[in-house]
């Protein structure tokens, strides 16, 4: 394979304080191992963006104040990003980035921060700070799709692990977009909101989640799924991925699963 993937890093200088950069490092590392080349395009205030340019959007978490600025600027990119997502471009959005890919974020005492409504979710400021490790079971559909992406399927956990740190409470808007599903369901931790019922959102190939950690290094199966989908989008045909040696990655993964799911038994 001699394909190039373009990762669009949304507002890297504003949305980068929660270690989410590890996700980009991971995508890049795992793509290069598969013989792909990767270009990282920074998309920030003033950047021009055409539909079809980006194969994987990445949008991390930032400080509250910086999110205000970003929400104002991203409005101009809304059409392009939504068009790309509708066509199958991949997106991974985390925490603040996830909220701004939803409909709005409503603070206690300021005006709403508008999102670009890729996801049918809305977020309200809350007074519970949801800070802890988090273990979720993936949505069944996602898990079965991940099992189909490898040339030789390795043992794949059904869990995703990360660290959440948010007070925004995100919930699905019931009637809209029947195509959206939760990313998964919390086994340990909060997820979208204090009801602990769902975590994250999944629509087309776009994902929103509260999991930092960074997420992808410890969840190589999910990282590979994003690469697989990005490659399918870029080349318009499915190509199975060779599994990599992920012993360290899965040891880090299962250490968290063991520690925190044992706590709830």
């Amino acid at each position, binding site marked *: 394979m001699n394909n190039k993937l373009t990762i669009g890093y949304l507002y890297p200088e504003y949305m980068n304080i929660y*270690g989410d950069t590890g996700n980009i490092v991971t995508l890049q590392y795992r793509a290069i191992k598969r013989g792909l080349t990767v270009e990282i395009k920074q998309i920030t205030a003033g950047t021009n963006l055409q539909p079809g340019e980006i194969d994987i959007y990445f949008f991390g978490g930032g400080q509250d104040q910086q999110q205000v600025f970003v929400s104002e600027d991203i409005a101009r990119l809304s059409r392009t990003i939504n068009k790309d997502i509708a066509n199958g471009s991949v997106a991974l959005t985390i925490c603040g980035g996830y909220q701004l890919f939803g409909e709005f974020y409503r603070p206690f005492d300021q005006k709403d921060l508008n999102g670009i409504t890729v996801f049918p979710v809305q977020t309200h400021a809350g007074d519970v700070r949801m800070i802890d490790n988090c273990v979720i079971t993936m949505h069944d559909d996602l898990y079965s799709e991940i099992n189909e992406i490898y040339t030789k399927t390795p043992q794949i956990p059904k869990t995703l692990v990360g660290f959440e740190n948010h007070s925004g409470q995100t919930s699905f808007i019931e009637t809209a977009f029947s195509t959206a599903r939760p990313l998964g369901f919390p086994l340990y931790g909060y997820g979208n909101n204090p009801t602990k019922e769902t975590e994250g959102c999944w629509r087309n190939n776009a994902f929103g989640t509260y999991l930092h950690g960074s997420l992808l290094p410890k969840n190589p199966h999910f990282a590979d799924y994003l690469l697989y989908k990005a490659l399918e989008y870029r080349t318009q045909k499915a190509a199975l991925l060779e599994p990599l040696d992920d012993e360290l990655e899965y040891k880090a993964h299962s250490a968290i699963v063991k520690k925190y799911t044992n706590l709830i038994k």
Partner: protein
Amino acid sequence: MIRKLAAIWCGKCILLLTKILQQGGGTAAPGLYALKIDSQLIESFTRQCKKGSIIITGTNGKTTTSRLISHYFSQSNISFIHNRAGSNLERGIASACISSSDWLGKISADYGLWELDEAAFSKLVEKIKPTKIVLLNLFRDQLDRYGEVDTTKIKWVTALSHLSLPTTIIFNADDPQLVHLAELVSNNNPKHIFVPFSINSGNENSSENDVLSPVETVLCPQCKHKLSMNQIIAGLGAFRCQNCSLKRPSTNSGISNYSVNESGTTGEIVSSSLKKTFSLPLPGAFNLYNFLAAYTYLENSKQNVDLFLSIVKEYKPAFARMEHIVLNKTEFILTLIKNPTGFTESLKTIFYKNSNYSEAIFILNDNYADGKDVSWIWDVAIAKYIPHHIRIIVSGTRCYDMAIRMKYSGFNESEIVVCENLHEIFNNVTTQKIPIFATYTASLELQNYFEKTGVKNKYWNE
């Protein structure tokens, strides 16, 4: 009064017990329980300091800065109380006071020297009523404990604006956050006196903008536009906003013409138009700020800064701040890591200009005191600062997270040694001089290990 005495006696008994049983350093527990009996304890102690209190706070450098000042106080026979064992919360101060007071709660000291963590500072500053405050820097720290930088800053601004007494606030003018803070506070409360310090020039003026290692973002804290900056260390330096009026203020004390080498830093300190040379035996450009902060405080307090410059040459690093420990003919250089800026700066210092190391140890724990969230290791430019021939040994409760971090920085998996248990590390080392980077509780574990093998005194006795 009865309540106060009960609290002090309770604290003193716990202190005695911990000494007899040799359980811990008695730096937190006596204060913790005494405060439960009398929550006003801090006020009644600190107001007894005849010449007042000084508070040191900031994300990085509190311990080193306050130890530089205490070093000077000791050498000058100035009496003082200091929460020097690294317990920088309210209980740590209470413990230090209980330990130096008599059984009636009387202390006789000229100064109270208090290092406080970012969260404790806003809660305690009004209780302590310091005459002087030193603000070192405000970086992203353990987000699960402290929250975001903006949140901490707002709390500081509120606390400082409401201080009832006029206070001298000595602050790092190379930190845009602190300059902005100083503007906000001086608008709210014009009684305070602000004393900025800054580093003017050196040989390390490199701009580090690497998309994969955004160590510290430099946006204007006032208007959120990009700052132009001549960086000294991550996120600090001579800055100016392109959009609004915020810029580094001019300062009375500063450092210029410095040069960093493996064992320390030399340079010139310029203040009130006098130029003096210094030699600081602490490696790492970031220690210049700690040194300059201590110097500015002493000068502002009319202390003998020439004496300070001469005794600083013999200063020894504090616990786990690039401390050298020899075990079975192997020399370990132990460095505490706790946030991206500190870790990056330590890497820069240790691996400065192709040092001779061929292996290095990284211990990552995720206990509460380390920060339960380990994602910050991904914001450190590992690949940029650790030479690729280095053999990597990882350990700690999150050893696999550290292993993956190294792997994804380009270190070969087969060259990464994972030791789930700390003591395995010492069977795996192959060279004679090895740096160790360890989070807080991992440093304590190491300390215990070294103690058992008899190579090091208990740190709280130092």
